[in-house]
């Protein structure tokens, strides 16, 4: 069995984010930290769990992005992927999901993957599109927001539970090959093992230049980015921590909540 896991590098949302000079994206040269998209960590862990359960399974990790994305692919090797594939694409900011999906689909098309796993969304642009877009391009069945997955003993189908809203899940059986977008909470992503860390150090990534020919020609265009407007009604409670606690209690008391 062959599994492809799509991983993305994102800025740590806890880092201070600063809009760049021409308002196209956030500055990536400041005190900003980059890491693997958390949803992709769940997808990668799920693939590694499948390999551990079934044995003869190859897990490939793939990423589309600029040079710095290589560190995230190395991290994928540390977490258990057998190969890291980097499709080099230098974006100067917003990268349309249709572009990422086109490059991934083009790579995966003739490589007979049984499963393609993606995170349900990227934490930076939060579009929830790359997974289903890859599936559409490859004509693969697809389930989104998967919170549980079981492969049948004959490996011809996979039973998934998908999260809808309001605490409701839907069960679906999909034929293999198919694509699953993985929701957070499906597993507990592991820390890299020492042996994998050592292997990742030595192992070379497979580097591929993005094929301009497969890139969609008419995607959406970014106009500008901005900080959200602060709510005009929000009152900032200031002072020492003690004063803030007293003020908050007075407000809650006045509103008969306490």
């Amino acid at each position, binding site marked *: 069995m062959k599994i492809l896991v799509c991983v993305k590098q994102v800025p740590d949302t806890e880092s201070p984010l600063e809009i760049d000079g021409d308002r196209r994206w956030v500055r990536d040269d400041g005190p900003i930290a980059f890491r693997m998209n958390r949803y992709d960590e769940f997808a990668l862990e799920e693939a590694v769990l499948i390999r551990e359960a079934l044995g003869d399974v190859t897990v490939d990790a793939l990423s589309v992005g600029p040079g710095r994305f290589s560190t995230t692919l190395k991290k994928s090797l540390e977490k258990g992927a057998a190969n890291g594939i980097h499709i080099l694409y230098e974006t100067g900011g917003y990268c349309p999901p249709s572009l990422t999906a086109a490059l991934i689909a083009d790579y995966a098309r003739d490589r007979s993957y049984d499963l393609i796993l993606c995170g349900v969304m990227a*934490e930076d642009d939060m579009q929830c599109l790359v997974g289903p877009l890859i599936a559409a391009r490859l004509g693969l069945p697809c389930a989104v927001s998967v919170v549980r997955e079981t492969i049948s003993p004959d490996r011809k189908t996979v039973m998934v*539970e998908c999260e809808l809203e309001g605490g409701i899940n839907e069960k679906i059986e999909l034929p293999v090959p198919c694509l699953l977008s993985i929701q957070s909470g499906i597993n507990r992503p592991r820390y890299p093992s020492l042996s994998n860390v050592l292997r990742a150090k030595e192992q070379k990534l497979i580097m591929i230049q993005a094929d301009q020919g497969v890139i969609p020609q008419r995607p*959406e265009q970014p106009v500008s980015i901005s900080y959200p407007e602060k709510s005009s009604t929000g009152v900032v409670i200031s002072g020492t921590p003690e004063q803030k606690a007293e003020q908050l209690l007075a407000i809650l008391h006045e509103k008969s909540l306490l």
Partner: protein
Amino acid sequence: MKNILVIIDTIENRVPSSGFELISFAEQLAETRSLNILVVIAGGTIGEAAEKAARFGHTVIGLEHDSLIHPNPELLAQAVDVLIDETNPQYACFQHTMRGCHTAALLSSWNNTSCITAVESFNSSGDAPVFRRSLFNGKINIDLTPGPGRAVLTVLPGAFAVTDSGSSPKNPGSVEIRRIFGIDSPGRPLGICESPEETVRLEESDVIISAGRGIGSPENLDLIRAVARLFPNSAIGASRIICDQKWLPYAHQVGVTGKTVSPRLYMACGISGAQQHIAGIKGSQLIVAINTDPQAAIFSISDYIIVEDLKKFLPLLIQKHEELYRSP
């Protein structure tokens, strides 16, 4: 006049709360671009929901298929694709749910058109409308303009309020129900299940004290519990990450994928404010947020903002309450 297609899907023939919000979005967009609204509503047996949708005064097309009783993005996308050929719309809009995005992705890929998801607002003053959505958990906004031709959009739940069709009675739009045949999805739906977790009465509580990533470790949930005990009829809520880490069961999760709540007081402790969380608490009467990050998105919808570390602030709050309000 160009059309705008509004596609509302249902779960067991019920319209999700965000369904009719799409009509409000389409009305606002149609007004600025002079578009004609067509409402498409899909389900197993959809007559009743279609009549309800028609009260907004627009033409309604009901799509019925036994397999649409549960979400079925592949089947829905194929049926909507037929309607796109027929009506040549400028926009096709879906609710921003995971399956809404799935359907939107399929249509945009088949038609080679741009797709913008989780639209929160738009600006229609220029030649082409510009759609605004969030990046980085709501810390930054991006304005996107679709490529030439048709665009597929998903609209964030909670971003556009449903207009009260009762207050300004309109002539209901016409309703046409179409049974769709012969298209089958590759997946076999096996039914809906509700997570059988402990009962947490979030919806019925007057006060919800909610914990987010900022609590740092599960031990600090005791602080949240202690604050909740200060209030009568209170409950403990949580952001998604707390439930993902199994610090609390999913029954505590507040947000679009968890519970939508409207308490008298919602106190967000160490919650950054992901869109789906914010959409789930908008109906609260009073929102107090405590976070160390002054940029946290939760502050943009809070009535009272406290920039502090919870682990220091909550014990102080409990202590001050003891001193000031619990005199012997």
